[in-house]
């Protein structure tokens, strides 16, 4: 399959290894991976803040970049939600509404693509460690992704998954919310990190780098030894 990779702007800038991990996993499965270089940002920050006109101009760049793609895959439940769930709302009544709907239909979150489209749950990965999984809210509640990452983790050799009590509780990131309401965002982060530490896991994994940025930010500040990795990075480990 020819797969066009959708790399969210902050993954592009901060976590290129997450993007490479996706490339490796997909190529190992025998697929051709393309990266349309004209992509920038899906437009979620202004969308979530209420500035829909501003959001549309970023979103149009994304739509143009993937116009000819067969299938689009991204390693973020949140940014994929923006395309898959919110583009149809954002472009409702606009001349390019149909284009937005077409892109929404062919875009998939990474773990969901592996399991539900490719039918793969074992990518032949190996990772020694105790892992706990954080469900990013957008992936969980907007896209309904819950079992997919766990099915993939279950087949990683050497990996032990320990579920945390607050797996489905928001980490408190929420984009601009994290700075506009920093004390609330921090309180939510504290609840999340306490739940992670309670498991005794040495690594926290998620299918969303934005949540991991929030979680990692606090774990590092508190000098915790718990590592945080994107699901793709685990699946690309040998």
């Amino acid at each position: 399959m020819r797969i066009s990779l959708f790399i969210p702007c902050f993954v592009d800038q901060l976590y290129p290894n997450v993007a490479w991990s996706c490339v490796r996993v997909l190529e190992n499965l025998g697929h051709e991976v393309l990266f349309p270089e004209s992509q920038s940002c899906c437009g979620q920050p202004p969308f979530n803040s209420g500035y829909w006109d501003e959001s549309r101009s970023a979103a149009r760049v994304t739509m143009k970049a993937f116009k000819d793609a067969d299938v689009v895959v991204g390693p973020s439940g949140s940014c994929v939600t923006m395309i898959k769930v919110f583009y149809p709302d954002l472009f409702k009544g606009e001349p390019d509404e149909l284009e937005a709907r077409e892109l929404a239909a062919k875009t998939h979150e990474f773990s969901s693509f592996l399991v539900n489209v490719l039918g793969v749950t074992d990518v032949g990965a190996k990772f020694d460690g105790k892992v706990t999984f954080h469900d990013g809210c957008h992936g969980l509640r907007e896209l309904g992704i819950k079992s997919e990452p766990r099915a993939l983790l279950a087949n990683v050799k050497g990996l032990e998954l320990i579920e945390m009590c607050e797996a489905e509780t928001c980490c408190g990131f929420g984009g601009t919310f994290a700075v506009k309401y920093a004390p609330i965002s921090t309180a939510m982060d504290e609840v999340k990190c306490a739940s992670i530490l309670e498991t005794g896991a040495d690594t926290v994994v998620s299918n969303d780098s934005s949540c991991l940025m929030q979680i990692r930010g606090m774990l590092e500040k508190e000098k915790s030894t718990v590592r945080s990795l994107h699901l793709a990075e685990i699946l690309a480990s040998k």
Partner: protein
Amino acid sequence: MATQSADFQTLSRRYTADKGFRAFIQKGMSGYYKKRDLNKANFQDWQGARDLAAEIKYEAINHLDKYLLEFEAKITARGAKVFWAQNAESARDYILKVAEENNVRSIIKSKTMTSEEIHLNDALEKRGFGVFESDLGEYIVQLRKEPPFHLVFPAMHLTRGQISDLFQKELGSEPTDEPEKLTMIARAVMRRKYCEADMGISGTNFAVAETGMISITENEGNARLTTSLPKIHVALLGIEKVLPKLEDLSLFLPMLATAGAGQTMTCYNTMYAGPRQPGEPDGPEQLHIVLLDNRRTELLADAEQRDSLGCIRCGACLNVCPIFKNVGGYSYGTTYGGPIGSVITPHLRGLKNWKHLSAASSLCGACTEACPVKIDLHHHLLQNRRNGAKSSPNPLEKVSFGGFSLLMGHPALYRLASGLGRIFQPLQGLVNGTILDPLRAWTGSRKFPTLAPQSFQEQWKKDRGGKK
């Protein structure tokens, strides 16, 4: 910045800083989760029940004109008086008029959030009426001169010790740590009040159009006494509370109990169809139904968010909301707190002063998932944000997102900025966490991520030679 927004910032900062308080609220909720899940499992199909409830509410809300008139005609035929109150003031005036015309002196109330919405107690007390809350939690917060902390659990923020101290101070009782004893102290006071009261004011959980009845559910038996001992019963309800058929209650009563308090059924479920009928030995001589609009019809006119009128005030969205659990009920400054309050308050009290509540959310969607009538709560928060940005944009945000849109709308500019970011990033390190740090809202509690030496885009270009 509007006062309401500044107050929210101040109060939420204060409450989140109190870790003991947050732990107390979280612990209170964990007991609820267990009971709720147990009772959800008793439904043959909880998701199916939600679908059905949403459908019934859709029908009711979209035909309010028909069902409210049917309800009025049926209950009026049995001697009740129905008053249509356009706003809070007209509802208050009507209730005051009834009280004055009947020489009422003492008023007893059972739980009604709608009376909080119209600030009824204040109005009654100002006119010299004694007003007593009979719901235990409401009574406790009334003694403390506080509004309810939560739609369903008004005094959940207080420990037994605090309640004991309050009773000791206000009622002269002996200190105790036992919930049963605390209840008995309040009960002894209440029993006297029931007998003295010549008017009882209640809320309403559901109104049934088909039979012209109102339904009240409660756990303490206080609402039954409030509505049956005094000679006048006033029931206050928002116009959205009407259901088409009696059989709808067979779904909504257990659903409200499960979602609201983790119960199979609430202990007391009572239907009222009119005042004392000829030949009946007891019951109130007068029943007044006050149907409150108070800008609900404006929400009805908003096709996008009309479904929020389906709310049955169960509080399930508050109970799962990570914002509510960390900032508590008083930070909101509204009658209806939590996600449902953040959605409807801008409609009921004005977007300009209340839009900040829609921004104060990570949009996690736990509320929507929990809502038994499937109100699209977190998406409505997004719509409120959009409406707020359109009607009164924040100048700084408008400029920032204008810049963002310029940058992201032009991939070449985005790449240029990504290069510049790498040049300027070390400068942030010099001011990290200080007052000069533009990122201090983040860096105060979290480490800021560092830019990768090269973006993925640059690496890909180098590695794959521009393969698209």
